[in-house]
């Protein structure tokens, strides 16, 4: 706009060859940089899309990448991907910020004394080879990688007879091990969440972590939505704390931490009757009953018995064992117990499949423990770290840092500085996955290709680790068959390829085009429970005694295990549960806090036998009174400008211990004492009312029983009258259903006249599907150039996100089993037909377009903020400073969407229904002989990324459009409309609950 980096600065760097060509300011004449040789598939001004695989986490979702003039500007879920099936999580979107992360290394770094100097790749590779040759004893510590890379690493390591250790902060090792023990299967089970009628989660946060959060999120939405027969699946969460996943449950049984096995077996015993069904585990079951379960879990026996009976009857059902957040000392046993439960309930082969062999990282903390001791003992010459950051993600107690220091030569492949790289002697910055080749096998028979979508960001002289290994091998005289990783990978795939799969080239090109190829694998033998080959204890595990509160350490929905922490988008993304940004917080039940005289915002010292941290308290009714919770991902010391000094590292409180037999890191291991420091701080939250909606018609729900005869809903209010024209009251129906005609009488002039048959854009959001995962928030931020403002501004109440996921508690009780009712509501600009914000603007900066969109003309805005004051939904956000200028370092501004104006300070902004996407489609349609716009052709960023498919956008004038269909539901309502008659274009569908809804004044 008036200053700062301009939207079209990107057109100046048309060719990515224009290294560092982004100009700022307007002093010197603007330069236009054409390509030297134009890639034929790129047209300036027209987006080019590539398919690839999201390498953010082990889920490996399919990804579409939108590039403009050779720059990746947006990532989206790939609906053709057989596992993730469209949708993408916030982390996936944020991988873009890691691509353009200004803290990436500008080239290979070589240690000289206590400082790192930038070197050339030849130099670095020679040094690597030389050191390996000279010292030997190579240990390769690697994180999760695709099959080809894994293959290459193995060959590399064997060639120099080194050792390889695999480690990820967050892993499913206990589940993997349990599957091996119970069924002898090498992979993770795959869950068919969507078809379960009763879903039990024993502390499994399946929409946040695990084999495929996005797919499971989709499944959860599908399961819980009301089918034609008027019934819907029920979701019960058993665990001490409600995670994002848990908040979506219909019932909560707050069992004692670690008692999952007892409860699962207790239930199994009921279902199995004389326990005959449980095969080799029959005698185990005999010693369990609802009584023992209730006693172990600290909940009523009836609750468990009743649940067990339902689990047996409402088949198909599905139960999931504890995930990363609940890895206690008997986690494997707990998962086995849950498998037994599924087995006796007859779910195997129906909702849970053990033969799918979903690939998982064979990550074992136990191996790391031995690696650490080996290094400590000086048995390691060259230590190479790739794709993992143990110096941060292992508990301090593990002594990794000290041991690592003992290795005589330390190599890191980190592309940006992290805690481990900081200790290395040689850093060989790896490519970001959007710049590199790779592959993934999310499950047997599915092969997805990861292709570079743009040339490497010119600011950073990076090189793909695979190529480096090959080069190093060459220097060492070992020929691994290929010169580049690409060739290596392609060769590998050719080997695996057999005639049954058809022509290789065809399959290869299809994989590149569609992102993945799928071919059926020979089904393995029917899965039967096997007798355990290792000792399993199903008892509630012992905890280290550090105090009277159990400490729950769980992966953060935003940062995972901490590898995502250096993204301002994720830092500023309100946590789906707490709605807190940036810093860490300790979750504590209100009663517990009250007993100790702790108020929200008090900074407390949390002390375990293994360490202590100072962290502010956040009061959460969704956690047991005898537990406190802390998320991973905070407290980085050496990661980057956004991650450092933000929050605390929960791992500091944990022992360095691995669960047996899986060897996973124990996350639920200790109790802690909590003592106030006497200091306070303002929590950087976006939540105003502590989850209370004050009986206002904002996020109402309807009981399943009431569906089909919900008229009494409308009784509350008749027709609302509104003054229209000069004098004379024109009635405007203010209740649910589609918004009334627009424009109203008296406003039909010029483009608003009846004669123009133009679409009228509207949106429908199904709150019964929305899981509050917040993917839409980040997607919107990425699409619309929404800046981040930083912790201090959030504390002042100046968050800028266009989408605000409101979370209201209606019914939530941590002291006993019962109904759970938490409402998630994505609040965006409602594009009201009678928008209160419009008439008060003195300069027409906001007004209603003939298509019924509430437009905000940034360059006309003077900044009186009257519109924001008058917006009952509070969806208008203001640029208080030059955020887009001051907060966004080069090259992060390369991510900016060239189709959206970058706003400067003093300007109001808000959701535009992705106007740029509407225009793009209109332009395309116009070029194609002015054909009409097809329904579903315009997909706003939020709708595209929603894994739950809760959002539908379209033309509501066309009664056949999807949005019109959805809106015709009896559950449709419009927020506050019945009391304000704002006539929003955004329609919500009420959440459907099993219990009677306590109706407030407006319900």
């Amino acid at each position, binding site marked *: 706009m008036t200053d700062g980096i301009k939207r079209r600065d990107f057109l100046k760097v048309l060719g990515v060859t224009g290294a560092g060509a982004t100009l700022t300011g307007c002093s010197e004449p603007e330069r236009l940089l054409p390509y030297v040789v134009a890639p034929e598939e790129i047209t300036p001004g027209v987006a080019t899309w590539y398919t690839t695989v999201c390498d953010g986490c082990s889920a490996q979702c399919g990804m579409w990448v939108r590039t403009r003039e050779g720059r990746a500007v947006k990532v989206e879920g790939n609906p053709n991907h057989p596992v993730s099936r469209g949708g993408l999580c916030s982390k996936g979107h944020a991988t873009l910020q890691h691509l353009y992360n200004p803290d990436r290394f500008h080239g290979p770094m070589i240690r000289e004394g206590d400082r790192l100097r930038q070197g050339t790749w030849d130099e670095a590779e020679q040094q690597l080879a030389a050191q390996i040759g000279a010292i030997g004893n190579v240990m390769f510590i690697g994180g999760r990688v695709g099959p080809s890379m894994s293959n290459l690493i193995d060959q590399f390591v064997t060639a120099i007879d080194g050792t390889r250790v695999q480690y990820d902060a967050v892993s499913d090792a206990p589940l993997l091990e349990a599957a091996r023990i119970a069924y002898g299967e090498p992979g993770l089970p795959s869950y068919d969440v969507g078809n379960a009628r009763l879903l039990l989660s024993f502390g499994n946060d399946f929409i946040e972590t695990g084999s495929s959060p996005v797919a499971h999120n989709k499944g959860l939405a599908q399961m819980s939505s009301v089918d034609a027969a008027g019934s819907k699946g029920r979701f019960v969460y058993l665990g001490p704390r409600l995670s994002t996943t848990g908040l979506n449950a219909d019932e909560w049984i707050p069992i004692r931490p670690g008692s999952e096995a007892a409860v699962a077996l207790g239930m199994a015993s009921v279902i199995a009757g004389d326990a005959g069904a449980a095969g080799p585990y029959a005698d185990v079951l005999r010693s369990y009953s609802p009584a023992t379960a209730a006693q172990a879990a600290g909940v009523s026996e009836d609750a468990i018995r009743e649940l067990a009976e339902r689990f047996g009857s409402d088949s198909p059902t599905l139960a999931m064992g504890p995930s990363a957040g609940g890895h206690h000392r008997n986690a494997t046993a707990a998962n086995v117990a849950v498998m037994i439960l599924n087995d006796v309930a007859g779910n195997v082969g129906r909702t849970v499949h053990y033969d799918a062999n979903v690939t998982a990282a064979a990550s074992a903390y136990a191996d790391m423990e031995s690696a650490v001791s080996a290094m400590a003992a000086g048995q390691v010459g060259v230590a190479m770290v790739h794709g993992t950051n143990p110096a941060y993600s292992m508990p301090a107690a593990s002594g990794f840092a000290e041991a690592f220091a003992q290795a005589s030569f330390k190599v890191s492949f980190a592309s940006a500085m992290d805690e481990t790289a900081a200790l290395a002697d040689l850093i060989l910055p790896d490519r970001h996955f959007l710049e590199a080749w790779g592959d993934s096998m999310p499950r047997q028979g599915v092969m997805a290709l990861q292709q570079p979508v743009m040339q490497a960001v010119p600011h950073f002289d990076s090189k793909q680790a695979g190529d480096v290994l090959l080069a190093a091998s060459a220097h060492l005289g070992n020929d691994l068959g290929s010169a580049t990783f690409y060739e290596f990978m392609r060769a590998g795939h050719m080997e695996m390829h057999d005639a049954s799969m058809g022509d290789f080239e065809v399959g290869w090109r299809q994989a590149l085009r569609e992102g993945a190829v799928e071919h059926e694998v020979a089904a393995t033998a029917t899965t039967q429970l096997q007798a355990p080959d290792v000792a399993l204890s199903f008892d509630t595990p012992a905890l280290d005694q550090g105090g009277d509160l159990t400490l729950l350490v769980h992966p953060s929905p935003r940062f995972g295990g901490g590898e995502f922490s250096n993204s301002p988008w994720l830092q500023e993304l309100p946590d789906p549960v707490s709605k807190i940004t940036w810093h860490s917080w300790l979750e504590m039940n209100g009663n517990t806090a009250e007993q100790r005289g702790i108020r929200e915002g008090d900074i407390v010292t949390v002390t375990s036998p293994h360490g202590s941290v100072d962290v502010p308290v956040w009061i959460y009714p969704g956690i047991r009174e005898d537990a406190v919770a802390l998320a991973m991902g905070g407290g980085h010391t050496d990661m980057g400008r956004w991650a450092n000094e933000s929050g605390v590292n929960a791992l500091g409180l944990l022992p360095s211990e691995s669960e047996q037999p899986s060897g996973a890191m124990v996350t639920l291991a200790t109790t802690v004492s909590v003592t106030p420091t006497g200091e306070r701080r303002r929590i950087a939250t976006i939540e105003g009312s502590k989850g209370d909606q004050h009986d206002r018609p904002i996020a109402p729900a309807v009981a399943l029983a009431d569906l089909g005869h919900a008229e009494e809903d409308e009784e509350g209010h008749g027709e609302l009258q509104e003054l229209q024209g000069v004098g004379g009251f024109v009635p405007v129906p203010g209740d649910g259903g589609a918004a009334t005609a627009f424009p109203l009488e*008296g406003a039909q002039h010029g483009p608003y006249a009846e004669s123009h048959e133009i679409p009228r854009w509207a949106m429908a959001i199904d709150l019964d599907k929305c899981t509050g995962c917040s993917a839409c928030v980040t997607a919107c931020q990425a699409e619309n150039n929404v800046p981040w403002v930083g912790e201090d501004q959030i504390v002042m109440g100046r968050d800028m996100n266009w989408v605000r996921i409101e979370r209201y508690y209606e019914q939530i009780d941590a002291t006993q089993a019962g109904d759970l009712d938490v409402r998630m509501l994505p609040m965006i600009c409602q594009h009201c037909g*009678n928008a209160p914000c*419009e008439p008060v603007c003195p300069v027409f900066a906001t007004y209603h377009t003939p298509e019924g969109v509430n437009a905000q003309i940034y360059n006309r805005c003077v900044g009186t903020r009257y519109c924001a004051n008058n917006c009952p939904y509070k969806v208008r956000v203001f640029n208080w400073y030059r955020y887009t200028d001051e907060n966004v370092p080069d090259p992060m501004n390369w991510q900016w969407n060239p189709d959206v104006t970058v706003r400067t300070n003093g300007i109001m902004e808000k959701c535009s229904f992705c106007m740029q996407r509407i225009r793009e489609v209109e332009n395309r349609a116009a070029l194609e002989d002015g054909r009409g716009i097809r329904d579903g052709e315009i997909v706003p960023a939020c709708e595209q990324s929603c894994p739950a498919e809760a959002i539908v956008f379209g033309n509501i004038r066309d009664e056949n459009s999807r949005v019109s269909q959805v809106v015709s539901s009896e559950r449709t309502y419009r927020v506050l409309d019945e009391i304000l008659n704002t006539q929003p274009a955004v329609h919500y569908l009420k959440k459907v609950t099993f219990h009677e809804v306590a109706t407030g004044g407006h319900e």
Partner: protein
Amino acid sequence: MSTTGGLLASYEYLDSTVDAIEQLKKAGFKGMKAYSPYPDHHIEHALGYDQSPVRVWTLVGGLTGTATGFAFTTWTSMDWPLVVGGKPIVSIPAYIIIAFELTVLFGALATLIGLFILSRLPDLKPAVVYDPEFTAGRYGVYVEAEGGRLDEARKILNGQEPIELREGEGGADV
């Protein structure tokens, strides 16, 4: 001496001033001027003023304002129609306020202009005969006459015991 001359008498008392004026009128003198430190209706009465035409200026100005207010707002709305808040393009109720403000504004300015024109302000020429005490505490009567009438006027003026009596060229614009 038969040239035209002007006589300016300064008085200390109101009644003597009024008497002087009335006697001059009785004697048939025309074009008298009176000075006073404040607006005094006795003097105005003596000189026999009727309604001031300033009122017309105010009225016309005000009406112009009203018309402008409605015309301008309506025209601008139609010039580029934009719907805000589902309201009619031309929302007369809202425009009443603009019309009202312009009524007052134009009315006030017209009044001021009218006043200046009618009372010959601004008038920065130094007065021919003038007594600075008029703005303090004195009253004054100025009359123009010629020849013998001049003496008659002088006699009448002196009859009221002026503090001082000045003579000046005739035709002095005051």
